[in-house]
């Protein structure tokens, strides 16, 4: 909403369009993180910073509304130590790859952001897009960008993030925002 000079601004005005819905820092090894009972927002944005218990790199996976069927597709480009690569999967996979993380070395984390657009839409499939950076040693790194599609119509209510192998270790963190 537009503001005028001298207008009193209430916190609720600011929160109307953008809200932090949840955030957590893991205190123990966690196999999956599910955000549930998510209010109806046009778009969700999640920021993640993780390290894994499994040797890597491992893919970080997204599933929506508890759907583990082959209702997802994805496409990513990445660069590992500067060498460009990429991969894609047409419809037929059970999750969307949103990035990679490692578990080789203490203190080395991967982080990324992910937008889920069309969360509240009652028509059209949910689109996902994000970027990530993964550091596993002083000389091993990866960056990438991903797009994905969930063949399901909203409004949606939950999503899950998990590594393809292993778990998120303590200290990994997640925060979720809703945008209108």
């Amino acid at each position: 909403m537009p503001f005028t000079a001298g207008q009193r601004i209430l916190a609720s005005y600011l929160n109307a369009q953008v809200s932090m819905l949840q955030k957590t820092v893991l205190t123990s090894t966690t196999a999956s993180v599910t955000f549930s009972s998510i209010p109806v927002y046009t778009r969700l944005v999640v920021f993640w910073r993780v390290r894994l218990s499994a040797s890597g790199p491992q893919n970080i996976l997204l599933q929506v509304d508890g759907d583990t069927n082959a209702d997802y597709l994805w496409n990513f480009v990445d660069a590992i130590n500067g060498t460009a690569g990429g991969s894609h999967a047409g419809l037929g996979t059970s999750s969307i790859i949103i990035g990679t993380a490692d578990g080789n070395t203490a203190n080395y984390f991967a982080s990324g952001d992910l937008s889920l657009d069309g969360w509240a839409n009652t028509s059209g499939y949910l689109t996902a897009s994000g970027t990530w950076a993964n550091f596993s040693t002083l000389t091993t790194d990866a960056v990438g960008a991903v797009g994905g599609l969930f063949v399901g119509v909203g409004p949606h209510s939950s999503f899950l993030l998990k590594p393809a192998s292993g778990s998120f270790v303590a200290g990994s963190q997640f925060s979720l925002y809703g945008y209108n």
Partner: protein
Amino acid sequence: MDGERPAHLVLDCGTGTETYTPLSDQEWAEHRQALAAAQAEAQDRAAEAEAKAAEDKRVRALVDAHPDPLVKLLAQRAGLAP
């Protein structure tokens, strides 16, 4: 590395609560199996990288030791020498 049984975490955006549910016995067994496979794969990759580095070093030493500069030039063109 796999001593602690992980849990699934559910963050309820309505109530703000966090609920941890430990993996079932079957999930835990599968989890440990996957960890072992990932570990073995990582060791294979490391061994492969080490072998490649040793081979690269050997080739570079041979090129450096060769008296004919043409050999060095050809090796550089082929990406076998700096």
